[in-house]
C-alpha cells in the first residue's frame, strides 16, 4: 500500500514538468502557425487593398481554410467534426478510417508476436539456428522495409491478396524483429546457477522452458511488445499509401496531401498519434498487471 502510494506520488511529481513541456510545445505550435501563415494572409490583404493590423493578421493566420500549418484548435475542431458528428460508417468519419488501420495493425501485431516468439524459441534451443538465422535477422532490419511496402502491396494485390492481409504482413515484418530479439535475450536471462538447479531436479527441456525460461522472459517480452505495437501501426499506415487512397489513416494522409487539405492531414496524423499512445498504453497496463501477479513488479 505504502509502495503503491509512493508510486502515485512519483507519477504526480513528473506531471508538472511534462505539462510544462507540452504547454511550451503548444506555444511553439501557435507561434509557428502565425509565422508560416502570415505570408498568405498579407498577400490576401494586399490584393483586397486593406491594411492589416497586427491582431487582425494573427486572427487571420489562425483561421485559414488551407493554412500551411493549421493551429491546434483548427485540428481539434476537424477531429471533433469527423469523429463525433459523422456516422461511424461514413467514409468521412475518422473512426471508420481509424478502425481499418487498427484492424490491420492488430492482425499484423498478433502474427508478428507469434512469429517472433517462435523464432526466439528456435534460436535459444538450437545452436545451428542461432549461428545461421540470428545474423540475417539483424540484417533483415537494415532493409528499409517501409520503403518497399508499396511494392509488396501491389505485388500481393496482383496475386489476388488484397484488403487487410497485405497491410498486416507489413506490420508483421516490422513487429516480429523487436519481439524476437527481446525474447532471445529474455529466454537466455536465467543464469547458469538457475539452469543447473533445474538440471539437479532432472527437469526435461520442456519443463525448464515452461517453469524457468518462459516466466523469466516476461519483462523482456512486454518491453519488446511496446516497440512492436508502435512499429505495427507505422507499417499499417505506410501500407495504406499505395492502395490508391481508399481507406485508412494512411489513405487520409495521401488524399490530404493531393488536395492540399492540411487540416485533414494533421487530424489524421494526430489521431494516428493518439491511437499509437493508446496501444502502447494498453500493453503497458497488461504488463503491470501480469508482472504484479507474477510477483515481479
Amino acid at each position, binding site marked *: 500500500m505504502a509502495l503503491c502510494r509512493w508510486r502515485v506520488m512519483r507519477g504526480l511529481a513528473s506531471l508538472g514538468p511534462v505539462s*510544462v513541456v507540452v504547454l511550451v510545445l503548444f506555444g511553439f505550435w501557435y507561434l509557428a502557425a502565425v509565422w*508560416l501563415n502570415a505570408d498568405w494572409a498579407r498577400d490576401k490583404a494586399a490584393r483586397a487593398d486593406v491594411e492589416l493590423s497586427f491582431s487582425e493578421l494573427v486572427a487571420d493566420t489562425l483561421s485559414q481554410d488551407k493554412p500551411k500549418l493549421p493551429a491546434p484548435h483548427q485540428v481539434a475542431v476537424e477531429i471533433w467534426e469527423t469523429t463525433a458528428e459523422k456516422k461511424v460508417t461514413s467514409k468521412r468519419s475518422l473512426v471508420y478510417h481509424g478502425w481499418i488501420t487498427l484492424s490491420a495493425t492488430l492482425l499484423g501485431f498478433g502474427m508478428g508476436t507469434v512469429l517472433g516468439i517462435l523464432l526466439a524459441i528456435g534460436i535459444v534451443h538450437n545452436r545451428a*539456428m542461432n549461428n545461421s538465422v540470428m545474423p540475417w535477422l539483424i540484417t533483415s532490419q537494415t532493409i528499409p522495409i517501409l520503403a*518497399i511496402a*508499396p511494392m509488396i502491396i501491389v505485388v500481393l494485390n496482383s496475386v489476388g491478396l488484397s484488403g487487410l492481409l497485405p497491410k498486416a504482413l507489413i506490420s508483421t515484418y516490422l513487429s516480429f524483429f523487436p519481439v524476437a530479439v527481446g525474447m532471445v535475450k529474455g529466454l537466455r536471462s536465467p543464469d547458469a546457477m538457475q539452469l543447473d538447479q533445474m538440471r539437479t531436479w532432472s527437469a526435461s527441456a520442456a519443463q525448464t522452458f515452461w517453469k524457468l525460461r518462459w516466466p523469466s522472459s516476461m519483462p523482456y517480452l512486454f518491453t519488446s511488445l511496446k516497440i512492436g505495437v508502435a512499429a505495427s501501426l507505422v507499417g499499417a499506415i505506410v501500407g495504406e499509401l499505395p492502395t490508391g487512397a481508399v481507406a485508412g489513416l*494512411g489513405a487520409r494522409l495521401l488524399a490530404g496531401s493531393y488536395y492540399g487539405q492540411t487540416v485533414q492531414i494533421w487530424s*489524421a496524423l494526430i489521431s494516428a498519434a493518439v491511437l499509437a499512445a493508446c496501444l502502447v498504453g494498453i500493453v503497458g497496463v497488461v504488463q503491470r498487471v501480469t508482472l504484479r501477479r507474477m510477483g515481479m513488479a
Partner: protein
Amino acid sequence: MMLVATAFLVWGLGWVLNIWLARFGGRWVSLVSALVFGVTLLLVWELVVRGLGVSAVILPPPSAIAVRLADPAAQAILWGDFVQTFVKGALSGYVLGCGAGFLVAIATDRSPFLQAGLLPVGNFVAALPIIGMAPILVMWFGFDWESKAAIVVVMVFFPMLVNTVQGLTEASSMQRDLMRTYAASYWQTLLKLRLPAAAPFIFNGLKIATTLALIGAIVAEFFGSPTKGMGFRISTEVGRLSLDMVWAVIAVAALSGSAFYGGIALLEKATTFWHPSQRER
C-alpha cells in the same frame, strides 16, 4: 517439378551443413553458417521461382536481379538515385537531426526540471508514426532533397535526444563525487566522465537513427520527388512492372543501409573499446 524438388534438397543440405558446423566453436563458424544460410536462401528462391514458373512480374529470380545490377545503364541510374536519396537526403538529415538531438540533450542537461519533462514527451513522440509528417514537409520544403532531409531530421531527432538524455544520467553518484573532489568544473565533468559514460547510449541512438534515416528519405519520395531517387524509382518501376529493377533498387538500399549501420557499429567499437559492453565479446 524437378527444380522444386532440388530446392528442397538444397534446403536440407544447407541445414545439415549448419548442424554439422554448429558442433565447432569459434568466430569463423558463425560467419560461415550465416553465409551458408544466406546462399541456401538465394538458391531456394531461384529454384522455386523457376520451378513453379512464377511470372517475373510478381517475383523475379535472383539471377535476373543480378543481371540488372550488372547492366551499366542500370548502374548509372542506380548511382544517381543513390546520390539523390542517400547522400543528399538521408545523410544530411541524419547529421543535422542527430546533431540537434545531441545538442538539445546537452542544453537541457543542467535543468532537471526540463529533463523530467522532456524524457516522457520524447519517449512518447519517438513511438509516434512520425513518417506521416512526410506529406506536410514535402509541402513546406518542395519536392527536392531538402524536404527529404527535413523528414529525416524530425525522425532521428527524438530517438537521439532520448538516448543522450538517458546516457547522461549513466555516471554513478560515486563517480560524480570523485570528480567534485578533484574540483572539476561542469564542463570537465561532462567531457571526461559523463559523455564517455553515455557513449553506449549515444551510439545506440545513432544506430537506431541509421535505419530511420534511410526509411524516411525513401518514403518521403512517395509524396513527391524530382525524377530521380530510390523511392521515385521504386514507385515508377512498379508501375512499369519491371520488378527486376525494383529489386535492384532494394538491393542497393539494403546494401547501403547495412553499410551505414555497420560503419556506425565499427565507429562504436573503435571509440568505446574500453566499455564493458564491448569488452565482453
